[in-house]
């Protein structure tokens, strides 16, 4: 296992492990991600149809509505949240979904800030995100 990057922890949560899903364009969670199953439903997004559930989700930037946190909270409650969120530009609206999840007693995934220039190194790999914000590529991992 090689240490690949170290980000800043934005919201403490469970360490996460999963295939990397590196978004190629900014996303609006509301209207962009189905709160029931975590699929990308914005037809204009290049990764339309991809599932965020159980992925280490790399989000370069977010756009749009102020209801993003609700969608993320619903994903956490429904067990279809990303395994970890790696965010280029911290979006307090989105991350609030994780803060509220904790208040409700639902364990949120960890959210880490990382410069998007590091994102592409994780494409197609399986990634482990530690509670200190360290991102490791797992050898032999096969993401998508």
């Amino acid at each position, binding site marked *: 296992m090689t240490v690949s990057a170290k980000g800043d922890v934005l919201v403490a949560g469970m360490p996460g492990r999963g295939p990397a899903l590196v978004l190629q364009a900014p996303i609006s969670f509301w209207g962009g991600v189905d709160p029931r199953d975590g699929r990308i439903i914005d037809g204009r997004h290049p990764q339309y149809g991809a599932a965020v559930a159980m992925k280490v989700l790399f989000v370069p930037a*977010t756009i749009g*509505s*102020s209801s993003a946190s609700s969608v993320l909270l619903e994903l956490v409650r429904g067990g279809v949240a990303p395994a970890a969120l790696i965010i280029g530009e911290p979006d307090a*609206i989105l991350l609030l979904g994780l803060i509220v999840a904790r208040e409700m007693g639902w364990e949120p995934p960890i959210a880490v800030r990382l410069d998007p220039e590091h994102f592409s190194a994780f494409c197609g790999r399986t990634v482990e995100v530690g509670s200190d914000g360290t991102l490791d590529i797992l050898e032999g991992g096969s993401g998508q």
Partner: protein
Amino acid sequence: MSVLLAADERALAAGQDGNAMAMRIVAESARLLGATRLLPIASAHIDGALYHGDSGTLFAEKFVAGGARVAVRSTLNVGSLDLSGGCMVRLNKPQRDMARRMMRAYVALGCEPSWTCAPYQAGHRPARGQDVAWGESNAVVFCNSVLGARTNRYGDFLDIACAVAGRAPDCGLHQPDNRIARIVVDVSGLPGRFFDDDTAWPVLGSLYGRLVGNAVGVVAGVAAKPDEDALKAFGAAAASSGAVGLFHIAGITPEAPDLATATGGLMPDTRIVITPAMVADSRRRLSTAERADRIDAVAIGSPHLSLAEFGRLERHLAGRRLRVPLFACTGRHVLEALERERRRAPLEAAGVTIVVDTCVVVTPILAEIKGGVLMTNSGKFAHYAPGNTGYATLYGSLSDCVESAVSGRPVLSEPLC
């Protein structure tokens, strides 16, 4: 960076009740936003009562069970049900019950049952310079830009938490320095007749949002004086294509009596000159339907229609009957006036479905039609309809929308730019 809570705020946050939960959520958000302290707010507009799943209902009920109550005037954005109009929302029983429970919980917290995304046209207009905590992207951008009150884009949960705590994180657009325009968007190169078309402002807003993202910009070189509904349409389109929280229009909006004031007397970072080709491209992007040979429904009213906009709808209708359903979304503040003036029944007799307290992109109202096409004059509907309703969009003016609904086929007049 850590947040410095006042002694009373710290004591509150340590408790077990709903007020404690509110203070913790506000303080945690302040940390994420990089704010070092909280500031008192004068009002709130709450976007959190829209049903996205059971978790939102359970959250609101946890506040109610914890004895929380809003500390400032708080209006409510749309919910998922039409409580006062005559429109059928196709939510199944368990979701319908949860949506209703959620709406009840927010009212139990002391929020006003305004159920509109245009609270600023329903009597909730904070004064210039006041700090408030507003949610819903179009309401936020209008509050900042047109009213000159100060709010960040408060998302679900934080809006109600701020309303209960009576505080908000002191950062972003609450701070005067962050309200200065860094980008000048120059529209003086567009033909003057462009602004005669009622699609001008939403099309321009959609382009503006894509160009500036979350930066503060100022539109310069506007030949016409937009009315409040045009500013509403511009802001809503801008806030759905980009994360726009505040715009200025030189000579029009309160913090931009002229270009130099809007930019704080500083040299802007960027100057973007808008060309007719950019506008044409922006207009094209609002339509996702591959062919303009059918429509299944027309939707107007995002943001919610004002009484004046209903007047325009009636003038275009001119007593004719519709062949395709037209959904006109509005708030109960407008419905009451329509009923008082005996205008509701003729509209409904013509085939208009008045959707109240909610709208067609946030809850299932449109018929389930595979490959359906929705025509709209709203930049915001055009942006969200494909993902939220499954309909492809066809974008046109209000006149085109009405002519299409009357004839049953798309009528698209040549745009003026």
